[in-house]
């Protein structure tokens, strides 16, 4: 049993973790940058400590400050949330060395899954389907061309340490391969400090489907079904749902089995997400694994009834999973809309003071937010204001519920993407479940 957990994050996920801890009787220590003095997570925690100036690098990414905070405040564990240091194996390792429990997998596992070449190799060894690829990191153009010819154009060049679409290049012909390859390498170096790239077959108009995994430290692994995350803009998800309108129980079973096999194969612990591409013929391919809680975890919580953050903490405390795979059921349908401070057309971030606020409520509505009337959204961090999540018996009812909740949501003083979400809810393709990775670019 932990007595006190430090929450190495801010915004809605910090609040989500504080809520779980409070309900479990665990004390919480929030950390904040000088720009976040008035942030809600500092109010809601049992204690709060200023760890640096506004810039993330000097505060939320400041490993020394965080470890020192835990030492002076006697926190036994740290929850990294998502983003910031959540997938930083160095931070996990530092915690391990200081005898602080990092609520997540071991640093070794984070390193393994953090490198996409290693991750794909591991999946392949475990007989989990992957798209045809270079089977290794590539160092020069010649190698790249050889591999690409074998795979067949178009191909995708990706960074081994990549994420968020940076260092990713789509190549249609032999002629453009060399320059794209070199550009990808350069981007990868500048974005991740690691120029390793690999090549895989390009999958046209895929769906982005992820499987939620929960694994304890005693070898028990279950999956909690899938999340449909195809609605993205520049590789940033803005709307997710569970179950996916394209996944039936047989496919769920197969994808779930593959995810569990991977987790078991690497001895994974804590919660994690195995991302797959699903092509038009319903073939699925392992993409990568996220070794942390996801932004969109509430939709899985709604349909399965499992509290994922409490599971994380219980697992970190060494408890055995109470959940068995055969008892996991998917009830109804859940949708999450990420409400961002941004122009709904140009997507330009819109920080500033919230002068009016009406938050939706009523049956089947969950709001995970970090805003209040009078709050000044700082310009330094991501622009997620709140996650609006609904649950209903059917997908159609969930869409109706989300529509009315979005109509209730009123944020004055800054621009938000509420109107974009409303447009999506009324879109024929969306209503028909016809959403692939390009939905939003066709849409806007």
């Amino acid at each position, binding site marked *: 049993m932990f007595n006190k957990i430090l929450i190495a994050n801010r915004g809605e996920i910090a609040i989500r973790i504080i809520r779980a801890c409070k309900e479990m009787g665990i004390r919480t220590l929030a950390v904040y940058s000088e720009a976040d003095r008035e942030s809600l997570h500092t109010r809601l925690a049992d204690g709060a400590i200023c760890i640096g100036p506004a810039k993330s690098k000097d505060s939320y990414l400041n490993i020394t400050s965080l470890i020192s905070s835990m030492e002076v405040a006697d926190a036994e564990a740290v929850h990294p949330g998502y983003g910031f240091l959540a997938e930083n194996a160095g931070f996990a390792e530092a915690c391990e060395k200081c005898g602080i429990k990092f609520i997540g997998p071991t640093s070794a596992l984070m390193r393994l899954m953090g490198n996409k070449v290693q991750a794909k190799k591991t999946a392949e060894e475990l007989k989990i389907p992957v798209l045809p690829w270079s089977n290794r990191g590539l160092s020069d153009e010649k190698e790249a061309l050889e591999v690409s010819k074998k795979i067949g154009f178009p191909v995708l060049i990706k960074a081994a340490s990549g994420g968020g679409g940076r260092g990713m290049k789509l190549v249609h012909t032999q002629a453009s391969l060399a320059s794209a390859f070199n550009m990808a390498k350069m981007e990868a170096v500048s974005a991740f400090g690691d120029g390793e790239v690999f090549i895989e077959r390009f999958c046209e108009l895929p769906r982005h489907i992820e499987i939620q995994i929960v694994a304890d430290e005693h070898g028990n692994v279950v999956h909690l079904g899938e999340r449909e995350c195809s609605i993205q803009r520049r590789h940033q998800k803005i709307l997710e749902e569970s179950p996916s309108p394209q996944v039936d129980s047989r496919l769920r079973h197969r994808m779930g089995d593959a995810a569990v096999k991977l987790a078991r194969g690497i001895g994974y612990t804590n919660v994690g997400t195995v991302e797959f591409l699903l092509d038009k013929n319903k073939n699925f391919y392992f993409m990568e694994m996220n070794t942390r809680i996801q932004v969109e975890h509430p939709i899985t919580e709604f349909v399965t009834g499992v509290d994922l953050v409490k599971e994380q903490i219980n697992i970190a405390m060494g408890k055995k999973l109470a959940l068995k795979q055969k008892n996991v059921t998917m009830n109804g349908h859940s949708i999450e809309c990420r409400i961002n401070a941004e122009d709904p057309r140009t997507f330009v971030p819109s920080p500033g003071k919230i002068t009016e606020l009406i938050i939706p409520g009523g049956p089947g509505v969950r709001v995970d937010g970090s805003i*209040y009337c009078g709050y000044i959204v700082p310009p330094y961090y991501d622009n997620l204001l709140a996650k609006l999540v609904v649950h209903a018996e059917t997908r159609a009812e969930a869409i109706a519920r989300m529509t009315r909740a979005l109509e209730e949501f009123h944020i004055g003083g800054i621009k938000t993407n509420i109107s974009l979400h409303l447009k999506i809810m009324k879109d024929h393709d969306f209503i028909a479940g016809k959403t692939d990775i390009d939905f939003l670019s066709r849409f806007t």
Partner: protein
Amino acid sequence: MDIKDIKAIYKFLRETDIVEFEVEGADGKLRLKRGTAAGALQQPVFEAPSPAPAPGSAQEIKKEEAEKVKAENIKVVTSPMVGTFYRSPSPEASSFVELGSIVKSGQTLCIIEAMKLMNEVECEFNGKVVQILVDNGQPVEYGEPLFHVEVSR
């Protein structure tokens, strides 16, 4: 500007929706702020392990003091990091500075321990220590005031 003027202005403001007000004239300056929302929200602060400072207040008061003294010839030295505040290099050694010590630019004022590393905090000007705000061995957060130092002219 005397109290009668101020009262008149306030009486007027009471009938309006003005929440902040500032006026400057030949005979002085007046700034008013009427009670409102966010400002009144309680501010939770660093909850230290034992012995705990009074939650909420201590820190705030320190910061107000800091504001006050800044106006004069006194500078506030703040903690550059989260850690534990030590006045001497080791338990047996004597303190780097005492109340009233004359300090020079570059002189060590204290140590902040973070992750087993001892980080020396140096004074950036010549002056005299007029207040020591934190007890030896206490945890401090980023930006927390440690010393008041009167700058030498």
